[in-house]
């Protein structure tokens, strides 16, 4: 078992599909794993922790059926091995209440899902630039 560069929890298959393409467009070497369900995602993350593996970046959709992005965020912060893995909340909502809550639970960033493929690429480019190129020390 290997951990991906980006661990993404998203129930919207369309968005996940678009994002997969966008990630490849930004850097073909990046690996991405997508989980649709919060519970499964946590189980997978716990597996990684046991195997002492960690993704380089965790992206969480905010509104998920069952456990929400915030719930997952809370659990991640409870796993000591993963506590310092950067987590970014990724949502269509730009509600200030959601933004505030995310930071309170320890999110490293809150991003409103860009509208459209081109914007998404721009967004991912800057993400990649920041988290994988400039902030290598984090990982």
């Amino acid at each position, binding site marked *: 078992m290997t951990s991906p560069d980006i661990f993404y929890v998203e129930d919207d298959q*369309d968005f996940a599909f678009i994002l997969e393409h966008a990630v490849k467009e930004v850097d073909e070497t990046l690996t991405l794993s997508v989980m649709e369900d919060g519970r499964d995602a946590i189980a997978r993350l716990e597996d990684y922790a046991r195997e002492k593996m960690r993704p380089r970046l965790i992206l969480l959709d905010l509104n998920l059926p069952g456990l929400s992005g915030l719930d997952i965020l809370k659990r991640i912060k409870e796993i000591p091995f993963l506590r310092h893995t950067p987590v970014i909340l990724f949502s269509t*909502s730009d509600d200030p209440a959601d933004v505030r809550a995310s930071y309170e639970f320890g999110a490293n960033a809150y991003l409103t899902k860009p*509208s*459209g*493929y081109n914007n998404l690429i721009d967004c991912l480019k800057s993400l990649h630039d920041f988290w994988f190129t400039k902030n290598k020390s984090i990982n």
Partner: protein
Amino acid sequence: MNNYQVDLTNCDKEPIHIPGKIQSQGFLIAVDIQSYQVTYVSDNISAYVETSAGVLLNLHVSVLAEHVPAFPSSLDFEQLFKLGRSQDSFDLINPYKVLIGDSPFYLIIYTSGAEYVMEFEPITLDFDIQNLIGRSVSRILATHSLSDLLGNAALEVKQLIEYDRVMIYKFHDDGHGEVVAEVKNEELEPFFGLHYPASDIPQQARNLYKANLTRIIADVHSEDSRILTYEGKENLDLTHSGLRAVSPIHIQYLRNMGVDSSFSISLLSKGELWGLIACHNYTPRFIDYKAREGAKMIGNILSSALEYRQTEEDGEKDEVIKDAVQSLSTYLEKDVDLIAALTKQEVTLLQVTGAQGVAICFENEMYTVGETPPMELIEDLFGWLRRNMQDSVYHTSQLPEVYRAAAPIAAQASGILACMLSKEMGELVVWFKPEQLKTIHWAGNPEKNMEPAPDGTMVLSPRHSFESWAQLVKNTSAKWTAVEITAVLRLREKILYAVNKKASEIRILNERLKMAYEELDTFSYTVSHDLRTPLTTIKSYTELFLAQNTSLDDKGKMMLDRVVSGADKMTFLISEILKLARVGRSDIDFSKINMSSLINGIVEEVTFAQKSAHVDVQIGDCPELSGDQTLLSQAFTNIIGNAVKYSAKSENPKVSINGTVGEEEIIYSIRDNGIGIDINHHDKVFELFKRMENVKDYEGTGVGLAIVKRILEKHHGRIWFDSELGTGTVFYMAFKK
């Protein structure tokens, strides 16, 4: 003190029940109840029998016949007294027929103080009057209405006593009298409808009318006869006498009126003197005792009928009023429109009293029914009542006397009955009664009873003139009855109940509306949110498709570009709606906002986003505001954004922002020299999705100003603007300090 009162006072002092004289149509002997000795004899006894009064004084009653040969030997006074004493009344004996000489007489005995009084008067009626009276009574009672009852009674009495004029005279509350029915010989002047001053019948005369129900004055021109008694003995009390002499003042009064004989029958209602059946004859005419008793019986029957009919008629009026209150309260329950319930139905406010008009002020609107004064005068009156009413109900029958300004409306509003519904709201109902007696026709001027005596002093004198004298009674309406006032109080309760019910219904409705509003906010929030996702999908796939299919021709690319830009527009719109919904959903978190840094930040962001660095934005004073950081930021972003956007294409575009601190408010103005707003669409500017004609070339959704307005409302602030097309616009936002 005026003449009228002098007259009344003097007349009231005359001791008319102990005149010491009798009329001369009969004679009188009184004996001591204990000793049976003669104590009083009328001087005129010598005109009837061969004796003189002085001879009879002090004789024992048993020897009277010896000294009066004309008395029949069978006349045993002692026996009669014994009978009367055993019966405790002389009713069974009276009248006792006696032949004196050859003439038939009635002997009438009654008790007066310590004396038995025997009055002898001639019998003039040679037939039995009982049957006649029986028929009269049934004819009187055959009618239903009060006025017919009175008319019939007058007619029957006239036929019974055959006098020239018979009137029913009614006493009003203030003691003055009015002729309410009259039967008379054709050639006579009618007195019907005339009013007579209270002083015409002084108080002690009224008392006698109550004690002795008939009164005959047989001939005003005849000489009275003195009553002899011992020196020092008081005058005989003649209260119950049929012969009592008449006050010289009254005799003069009758003579002045041209009356020779007068007869009256008292009418009592509930123990009080209701009026008189007053009969006048213009030649001397004595009425036989039995005929007088018959008339008395008619009087009795009329009295009880009056009492009954009056109660019945009052009762009917009360019923009408009670029914009206009931109907109105039913309308009030059914009709949500209070005014319609009270004024538009078959039964209206008017029927709650005997008023001619009514006005109601409710929710700042005035409504009237019936005859009321002109609107502007009602308004004044209502204002006066609002300032002066202490209780919930106020009434007067002489409004212009209490409220001078009502003089011009005396005709419709001499009487008012006001009922306060709500003092805070100034809501009240006022019923109007018209000036009731426009003119009172007095039988002679009641104020001219004084005339100079030969020695030059003013003495009272009965009137000489009975010529009708019209007095204008001003500013007075019919009185408000207890029933009317009670009805108004009851109606008031019903109205207040209805108003309260309506108020609580409105409160409930308001709550529901608030809930619906909140639901709508939640709904639009959810819907907008959910719409975003598929929209993003559409756009993303389209862009991905475009990115991966480089072989696509220009036309295909162009069409897919349109899909993308359509999706963009929709995304923007949705995000605006989301913002609006969020304003409604959020609770305001009031804190002190540093406006200077907020506005500087906004200006930087706006000019950058709109690529409008060429717009000269001037920031003046930025006083601190108390409010919600996010919402205020949103509001200022919108307004400043608009100012920049709509002035960007002007020559030397300029936007200036300035805040001023007023007494109660802090007002921010945002001025631009942009395209301006058509003043005709003034009221539409803040409506959702409304965009003005001149902004077609500018991007926008028509939601921005609606959001700003809502944010201001949330802050209990206000927003407005001045504008001129092509010149510029100033938006003002005012916040409470």
